[in-house]
């Protein structure tokens, strides 16, 4: 489904004085209700936290160009990074070979390599996520 539509519906519902709504369309069924009392604002701060944390603490390093993924500077060399390794923003994490040029890709954030999403020799598209960087442990 289209979450923008959902956002739109929320906005409409919240802006009015209506306290209860049930809506069913071809593609969705939704029930909305407003608290009848002043508690509306009293949302516990910690309830918001657990949902938003992982998203905030997890980043990906995305390819800035189209090319071929190289995990190491030379075919038989050690890979630039392995899962579990700590990287600093600016560290070279892999190479994207394009037009016979070796382009060093640098970490765009610091953290621990949680997963490497590309394999040696893969065609990499623009903006394709190459690896997931998590919080330092």
């Amino acid at each position, binding site marked *: 489904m289209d979450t923008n539509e959902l956002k739109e519906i929320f906005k409409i519902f919240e802006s009015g004085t209506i306290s209860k709504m049930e809506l069913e369309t071809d593609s969705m069924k939704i029930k909305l209700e407003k608290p009848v009392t002043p508690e509306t604002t009293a949302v516990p701060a910690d309830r918001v936290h657990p949902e938003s944390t992982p998203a905030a603490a997890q980043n990906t390093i995305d390819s800035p160009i*189209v*090319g*071929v993924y190289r995990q190491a500077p030379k075919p038989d060399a050690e890979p630039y990074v392995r899962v579990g390794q700590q990287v600093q923003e600016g560290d070279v994490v892999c190479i994207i070979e394009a*037009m016979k040029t070796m382009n060093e890709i640098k970490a765009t954030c610091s953290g621990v390599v949680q997963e490497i999403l590309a394999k040696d020799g893969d065609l990499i*598209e623009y*903006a394709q996520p190459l690896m997931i960087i998590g919080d330092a442990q």
Partner: protein
Amino acid sequence: MIRKLLIANRGEIAVRIIRTCREMGIRTVAVYSTADANALHVQMADESVCIGGPAAKDSYLNMNNIIQAACQTGCDAIHPGFGFLSENALFARLVEAVGLVFIGPKADVIERMGNKNEARKTMQEAGIPVIEGTPGIVSNWKRGLKAADQIGFPVMIKAANGGGGKGMRIVHDHDAFKNAFLEAKAEAKACFGNDDMYIEKYIENPKHVEIQVAADEFGNVVHLFERDCSFQIRNQKMLEEAPCFLLDDKIRKAMCKDAVKACQAVHYSSLGTIEFLLDASGTYYFMEMNTRIQVEHPVTEMITGLDLVKLQIRIANHNPLGLKQKDIVCRGHAMECRINAEDAKADLKPDAGKITFLNLPGGRGVRVDGGIYDGYTVPPFYDSMLVKVITFGDTRLECIKKMRQAMEECVIDGIHTNEEFHYFVLHQKELIEGVYDTSFAQKCLKEWMENESV
């Protein structure tokens, strides 16, 4: 042998090329910017590669990423479509350099025809009528003014590397020359990084008539008759037809012959167009040569029965034309209306947004070449053309009537388009009579906006 082809373009022309490739058994690779992930051409191609961000310079003009994508996906060839890199000699050279086939003419020819002054000189030498003007670059305004006085006003000041109406000024008298020259030169510098200027006689309100040509590597050249592209607003064509209705057959023959001669002069080998200006007295002048497939190619396809994209690919694949001039017959009349995401009521201001309902026309003699679908969001980054509606009739009047009907059937909700304006245009006397020149469209738009604002 081309087996797999990358299309370095988007939208309607990418879809158009994919369709012909399917028929030819050629696999296709689409490229797209991050703004085009949901575009129709991406969904229709066999494979697709994201090549950059929304801005054209980061994606559809990003030669390295495009060529890399072609190499990596195992393509043999790249089709540049129109616009973007289609007339970029450097790109054509790079494509050839990595061992791929560029669907178009040789890079040298692209370059030579890309420089307007050079093209003009070449054609003059080949005996094609060109507009009277300075033989070469004019170094400063004083020399320019002297030349203008000799040619006689009105004159056109033009940037040698210009295009899209930039770096150009029309000057009607001696006194206005200096300022106009300096302005145009500055604009040329800013837009093209080159301020070589030349001066030509200005032809007032001509018809814009162009000849479609096709030439192979073996010296075979044919013309595919003409198109009338006089319906332009700010140098943007919006409605085209073939053949040119009122063109005297003697003039038509001469123009076609000259177009073939032009190809021979530059040893052309691809699909191309020779653009002419035709003045009220029936005199015509070479304006420029387009070395790409053009937006309006379908009208020529309708009257000749040929698939121009197929022809273009076959020529690039080193095949002989397989067509003799006498085999190419002009039958009936075709018209194309470009449906653009433009608010006609706001002087054709480009629009973008989600298409909330779409109904495209159909039936006998109606062809739809589109790059959109119901629910598609038109991104704000590119050309505003959404769909081309082409109609064909035994007679021009039948063709116009079909187009009116098609415009009535066409519904694009959610964004502004120029569709209603087209409907208005199709009922104007000058259009129906076929006598309109390049001044007509702007006049028509003004009248329509006035009507609409009541």
